[in-house]
């Protein structure tokens, strides 16, 4: 798992460095979660993309796109050569997700606070059609500033929508710095509990904990608050909010690739 995750990290850093794209840190923090989802949990493959019974993943924090692109390419959803033109003229893969770009992108995203409502709609459609599949939504923690997401949290709790799982990439950093300074979310677990959600707190880089959290059956919607490190795996990026914006230069990239063995 770790080997695969680091392979994905290296590739996304090469992509971001080449295209001077931002959001390297935001992508690195969700890689381990994506690897567990796509290689252990999700009932989905390139051949099942039109099957209504497939599981669905929504990356609501669309700025983490590069992590998803590399993961999908590793699962052969599309040709890996497309990664080389990420964020570049004539490429297929934009900085924020476009569902028409490549197979495997369930929804377009990039504006924060939309994904959970979309996921709730998909989960409700599954309930109507008596389909047992699950819907997973990955949101940033800063994204929880958006009011619309709390509308969805409230309704999902009310409906006991237990085929819906929200994963919060709790790296504790957002646009201007620490979430605790900008708009304090704590106590985050209690907030979800009073909205009638099942709350699980995990280390978002521990594969066993991630997998166990996904497999836990509940009778309520489930939120996995995954404590993560922005820039995970690259020493000079870890917990530095400026890597929300920066892309590594050639020297920085070389160092990062050496660290990610």
């Amino acid at each position, binding site marked *: 798992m770790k080997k695969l995750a680091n392979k994905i990290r290296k590739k996304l850093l090469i992509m971001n460095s080449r295209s001077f794209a931002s959001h390297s840190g935001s992508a690195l923090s969700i890689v381990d979660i994506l690897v567990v989802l796509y290689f252990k949990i999700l009932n989905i493959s390139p051949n099942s993309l039109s099957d*209504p019974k497939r599981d669905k993943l929504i990356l609501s924090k669309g700025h983490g796109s590069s992590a998803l692109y590399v993961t999908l390419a590793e699962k052969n959803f599309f040709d890996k050569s497309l990664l080389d033109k990420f964020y570049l003229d004539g490429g297929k893969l934009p900085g924020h997700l476009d*569902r028409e770009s490549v197979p495997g992108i*369930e*929804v*377009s*995203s*990039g*504006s924060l*606070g*939309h994904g*959970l*409502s*979309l*996921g*709730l*709609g*998909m*989960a*409700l*459609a*599954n309930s*109507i*059609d008596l389909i047992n599949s699950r819907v997973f939504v990955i949101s940033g923690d800063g994204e929880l500033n958006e*009011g*619309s997401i709390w*509308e*969805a949290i*409230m*309704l999902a709790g*009310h409906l006991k929508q237990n085929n819906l799982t929200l994963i919060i990439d709790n790296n504790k950093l957002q646009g201007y710095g620490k979430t605790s300074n900008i708009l304090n979310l704590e106590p985050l677990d209690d907030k979800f509990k009073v909205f009638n959600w099942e709350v699980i707190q995990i280390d978002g880089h521990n594969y066993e904990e991630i997998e166990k959290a996904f497999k836990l059956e509940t009778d309520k919607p489930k939120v996995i608050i995954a404590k993560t490190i922005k820039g995970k795996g690259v020493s000079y990026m870890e917990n530095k909010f400026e890597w929300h914006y920066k892309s590594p230069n050639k020297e920085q990239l070389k160092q990062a690739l050496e660290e990610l063995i």
Partner: protein
Amino acid sequence: MALQIPKQRTIKTSFRRIDMRNTFVKTLIKLAENDERIVVLTPDLGFSVWEEFEQKFPKRFFNTGIAEQNTIGIASGMALSGKIVYVYSIIPFITMRPFEQIRNNIAYMNTNVRLVGVGAGLTYGAQGATHHAIEDIAIMRSLPNMVVLSPCDSYEVEKLTEKSLNHEGPIYFRLAKTKKEYPIININESDIKIGEINFIEKNPNSEIAILFTGNASDIALDVAVELKKRNFDLDIISIHTIKPLNYGILEKNISTKKFIFTIEEHSIIGGLGSVVSEFIAESKFNPIFKRFALPDEYSHFVGSQFYIREKLGFHKDIIIEKIIKLLKNTV
């Protein structure tokens, strides 16, 4: 007072309740009986309107609470799962509150969501300007992929609702809702199709075309009657599809006219009048053209739709006077 257009084919307008809203619901119930994909969402509006639908299809009706942004996201998620989702509310709440959700989740992703807004123009009169809808056509028609429908009576509502079922992509329905008796215009039961125009009256040799949309129908017909009384021949056209309304259709049907007038209960900015002026400005035709619409201002008047119309200068007498003046000065 029954409306009569004396010359040519008589338009028999009957004073039945227009009730576009109930026509829409009744039509949708019929469609839903044969199509399991249809789902209705409402952010807690439509009490006394949706009970029959809810009773017949309890698993396909959701009151999503007073939360429009979430409701639009849910609608899109359902549509991406194969549903055809009709979302119902009052126009400002369904078009403006969740506008970015509409843009990203419905228009950008081109999903089969139908936004059904009631309260076109000043319909909600005395409720105040928060409930009026004067900017909705302008903003909705700016969205790529979005179809904008503005039917003028319950017949057009019925036909367009039926046609909406198999349309690929999003649709916005702009419906009126009023207890006042309104004319049913389409007694000739013409074929109504999305993207086409609907002739209420067609006179091949006329030099005047009156294009109207939605609940400006009563004013448009009153104007027509008055002009006919003065022996002017004219075409009266209901523009039920604001978008897509291609220039080819306009060229085919109004390019020979010397006078073109638009009438709509919407702001003067961005509605039907703008659509038609955009066409004329780029065409080689040079008709005398005048837009009649609501002024670029919010109403602070208290009263019914018809009272506020008059206060804002959107009244048949004023429109007739202006048109006659233009006709006399030019003919």
